[in-house]
């Protein structure tokens, strides 16, 4: 039984060639990303990573101003959003309500830009939509320290995993609701309440 080559070693000549070798004509097969048709039967060990912590998002998608992709653009905006919310939290903790609200309002101005990148996925879109309606339904009222912390944490998690599933996004939305943010349009909330009354 063949075993998979270690990431850092070179596998020496194999008698069974590929149907359509993808990797030059060298006398040995290099380990790493393989050609399309390597004939293997069993792989008892998966190598390539022994670390437990997932990769840092900025290592997976290094910042690049010259390249416009929804995901990479959104990561930049989300980083700005996290920074503003951190400052809002610090101000709220120090009982500086006006400063905290100023940072919160600056965060709100980023939402349209985040909304522009909803092509990233349904989960991402659901969280951004929820935050959009949370802002509208506040009607200008400032957020508490607890609410700011929840929004900050959700945005941080969204930035770490921007291609989040819709199911996971609903959990984030629930967390926002749990800290008394109205995350649905007012009309929908009214309709739901009416239906519940009936």
């Amino acid at each position, binding site marked *: 039984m063949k075993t*998979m080559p270690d*990431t*850092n070693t070179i596998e020496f000549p194999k008698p069974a060639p590929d*149907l*359509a070798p*993808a*990797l*030059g*004509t*060298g006398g040995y097969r*290099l380990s*790493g*990303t*393989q*050609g*399309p*048709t*390597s*004939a*293997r*039967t*069993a*792989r008892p060990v*998966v*190598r*390539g*990573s022994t*670390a*437990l*912590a*997932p*990769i*840092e*998002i900025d*290592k*997976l*998608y*290094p910042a*690049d101003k*010259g*390249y416009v*992709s*929804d*995901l*990479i653009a959104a990561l930049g905006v989300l980083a700005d959003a996290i920074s503003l919310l951190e400052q809002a939290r610090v101000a709220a903790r120090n009982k500086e309500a006006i400063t905290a609200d100023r940072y919160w309002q600056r965060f709100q101005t980023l939402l349209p830009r985040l909304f522009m990148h909803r092509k*990233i*996925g349904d*989960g991402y879109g659901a969280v951004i939509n929820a935050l959009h309606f949370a802002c509208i339904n506040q009607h200008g009222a400032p957020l508490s320290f607890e609410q700011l912390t929840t929004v900050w944490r959700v945005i941080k998690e969204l930035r*770490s*995993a*921007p*291609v*989040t*599933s819709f199911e*996971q996004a609903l959990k984030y939305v629930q967390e926002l609701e749990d800290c008394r943010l109205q995350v649905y349009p007012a009309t929908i909330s009214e309709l739901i309440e009416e239906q519940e009354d009936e």
Partner: protein
Amino acid sequence: MPVSLSVADFKATNAVCELRYENAYLIYDRTGQVCHEARAFYTNCNVVTASPNQTIFQSDEGAFALELSQCRFSTNRPDASLEKFAGHCKTFFDSVTIHLDVRVFTRVGLRITFRKDFKDLEEAKAVLNSLKLVNLRAEERFGAAPEPHEVFLRWEGAQVGAMLRLKAESGKIDIILPPELEAEKSEIHKSFNGLILDVDYYTVAPVERSQLDASAWILRSVRTIRKNIDTILGK
């Protein structure tokens, strides 16, 4: 005389993107679903070989391999920007990860082979050695040759890694056409000499499914690869 090369001087001849994951035993139940989706999306998509642990299918866009612990898409005719390639990878990988319920990738790799043609092998070797990638005096080693005709380098950190291989290479293609074609020439012979630049850029730390957009990652990685190769070749 040192030669300054850029990745723009090379032509991409092959591209492979590969995901590795812990054994995904749903492969035994859902390979057919992945093939079915691939047939709906890709042109002239047909299964080449199929076994419980490995299924290979081929389409006009490229070749797909679905295995117990990895899957990959490859093409021998990548588009210059690799945008189409990235789109094809994303569709295939999304299908695999959903059907096989893969949550974490132990390795995500992108391998691109570039080639620059020269008039003969000696010129390709001379260009490779003029890059001075290896700090060795030019004297005969192992009784073989004074200069290497292949250089292999690897950089690996805790998060990502990269392998770079440069090789002066020559090859020959001999094709004898079937007489039924009644072609003007019954045989085709072509020889080529060139410098092969083979790059494998990959993740070392695990990647969660919720982190990976294959298309965005490939296109970003292509920029990283091109930028870094230029700095290495141009120095």
